[in-house]
């Protein structure tokens, strides 16, 4: 673990990303302390510029506090990003693992299913799914997971394919170990690094997809979200720039931070890159 931190620390931008990410997490966790009001509540004069009328980042056309929206929106973004990624990585790992380990017909079958999902452009597919299921946190998480798992499945399949023929796995066969134990106890721990890396990058994509859905009005109507804020303020871009700018920046910085962390994880966990330095 200490060794891992040493490797991770070498990539300075990754550490910067981690700091930003931690800040956003703290912001999401403490949103209800600093902004105890519901972010949808109309709390003052509409269209106030940042710093006026007691609004740190201004207010929108209905008098909602933009800063409060960003703080509460952080919770939504991180929650959906994490949940969707966990579901996608879990399902993708199971599919890819089974396909890679058993090969043959099972592999053919599972991979053709995976390809079917990959043929549909992912954002359009996500819009379609949310529109069918009615916008809610669950439907958004499901939609994002459904469009994200094929990438994990392909990665895990490749890892399982190469690891299952390694001699240490064959040695387990000669000891009479069961398939489940070989998959979970022997092969999976050896491909955790790439899974962690792809998972961390996937959180960023999930946040982007969520914002996009909310921007189009397909977000959960009861929950504040950055994409919703941008969508609501887009017609006022020229008269009240702050309504779209600050949530937009929040999305940008969060996605950037997560990508930096993901890259740092890749540098630290990928043995081939490690040798290069």
């Amino acid at each position, binding site marked *: 673990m200490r060794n891992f931190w040493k490797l991770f620390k070498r990539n300075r931008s990754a550490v910067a990303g981690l700091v930003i990410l931690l800040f956003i997490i703290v912001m999401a966790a403490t949103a209800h302390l600093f902004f105890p009001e519901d972010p949808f509540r109309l709390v003052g004069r509409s269209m106030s510029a940042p710093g006026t009328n007691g609004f740190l980042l201004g207010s929108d056309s209905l008098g909602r506090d933009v800063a409060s929206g960003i703080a509460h929106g952080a919770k939504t973004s991180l929650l959906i990003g994490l949940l969707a990624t966990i579901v996608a990585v879990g399902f993708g790992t199971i599919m890819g693992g089974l396909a890679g380990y058993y090969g043959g017909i099972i592999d053919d079958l599972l991979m053709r299913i995976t390809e079917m999902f990959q043929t549909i452009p992912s954002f359009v597919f996500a819009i379609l799914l949310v529109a069918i299921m009615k916008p809610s946190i669950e439907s958004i998480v499901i939609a994002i997971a459904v469009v994200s798992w094929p990438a994990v499945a392909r990665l895990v399949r490749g890892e399982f394919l190469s690891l299952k023929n*390694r001699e240490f796995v064959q040695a387990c*066969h000669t000891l009479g170990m069961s398939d489940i134990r070989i998959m979970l106890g*022997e092969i999976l*721990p050896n491909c955790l690094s790439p899974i962690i890396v792809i998972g961390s990058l996937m959180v960023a994509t999930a946040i982007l997809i969520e914002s996009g859905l909310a921007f189009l009005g397909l977000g959960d109507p009861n929950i504040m979200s950055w994409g919703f804020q941008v969508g609501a303020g887009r017609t006022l871009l020229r008269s009240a720039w702050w309504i779209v700018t600050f949530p937009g920046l929040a999305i940008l910085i969060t996605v950037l931070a997560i990508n930096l962390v993901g890259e740092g994880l890749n540098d630290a966990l990928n043995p081939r890159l490690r040798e290069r330095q």
Partner: protein
Amino acid sequence: MSLLEIRNLHICLPEGSERPFAVEAVNLDLAPNEILCIVGESGSGKSLTARAVMGLLPKPHVRVTHGSIKMDGEDLVNVSDARMREIRGSDISMIFQEPMTALNPVMTIGDQIDEVFRFHVSMKKKERRQKALALLSDVHLPDPLQIMLAYPHELSGGQRQRAMIAMALALDPKILIADEPTTALDVTTQAQILKLIKEMQASHNTGVLFITHDFGVVADIADRVAVMQQGKLVESGTTDEVLNNPQHPYTQALIAAVPSLSPRQPRDQSAEPVLQVEALTKVFRSGGGFFGFGGEERMVKAASDVTLELRKGETLGIVGESGSGKSTVARCIVRLVDADDGKILLNGTDLRPLSRAEMRPLRANIQMVFQDPFASLNPRTRVGKIISQGPLIQGVPIKEAQAKARELLSIVGLDKRAYDRYPHEFSGGQRQRIGIARALALNPDVLVADEPVSALDVSIQAQILKLLDKIRERMTLSMIFITHDLRVAAQVCDRLAVMRYGEVVETGPTAEIFANPQAAYTKELLAAVPGQSWSTA
């Protein structure tokens, strides 16, 4: 007058490495028309020395810090990159261990040879082609016209290495550096390539710097020998001096570790068979693809009608070159691969038709030791768990299994503290000991060892062979020992089965096969073993 003069060469390693210098204070001289062998075990710095001459060190972390490398008086350490590029290929050229990776897979052999001419001399296209054809026929490649148009993957390993040699000699270099050029080849091919290098060297008057770890090869090819250990030159002299009258204790130890070609004394053995393989057949199919609708199926007969018998307490060697099916047979016996036909009788029970579940209780009786000590242990599992896993699966109580694992560690000669460590903390030889301990944990009747020492240095190899011998006596194991190295086979096996193209061509007691081989292929194999004229005590 020497062609190449290396004086006080120091090559540093990146900070935090095991030792500060990869190569330290090395002095070497290479005369024209001479073959100088640099011998050493892995990590001795022999390859880096050669790469320094070519200016191919992985800079900036690994670089020459002191000393000079002079070729005809020109110091190669300080020349400009542009000059070095001129020198490479025209004055000094190199052949590598693995011709498949050294050749560009998407260019034909003809184009790759042509490139050498295009970069170094101005010649008309037709002339270049003539020259390339002549070179290919010089290295005895059949049908040079065909070879010119072939891609590397279409040639065999030996043919690729010949093409590499042709390319290296294209511009009549003064110095040829050969970095383990025959290590990846089969023994019969190796013999041919060695002969070719010697022949080309004589006809081109080249000085050859030949890097190898194999004393047999040294005996066959070298004029002079330099022995390296841990980056230092410990001994150098003519081949005869170094091989037959080594002065330095390290050289003496290395030479003593080379297995002798004279077979061991046969041991007493019972006639009772533990394992009988009858008419075993395995065909590999590839292709098919997309639910079988893809391309045409290809079939490779990896084992056809293989019949073997392993008697109680004996070691049966299966020898053969790569692709002979020896590993497939081993994998069929331990049921890693399902054979298509035949019988595998272990103490009278046929293993072949058993399902995985039915096989499980019988697993304990037959265990395997793998070739690659780096790939055969799970890098994320502690050594203690790796060894105790087998008994635990077979239902041994955890306390007992752990005690057994600790006992086995001491039997295979490892420290008790190894129990809680991870595999990457051990050297190749130590890992192989762990692999052996894992196989022994289940008290097997039969141990199948698939090339257990071929990835190891010669001195470690000797230790592992000794350990296997000791364990065999102590636990009355019967062993199937797969190897491509006839020297090792001579020292380990009571009986031999020689395989080729998936068939057993000859079986018999080791001494008999060595003294009086019957099959033509066995004779060929025996004749190709390097260093026969030189025999170790």
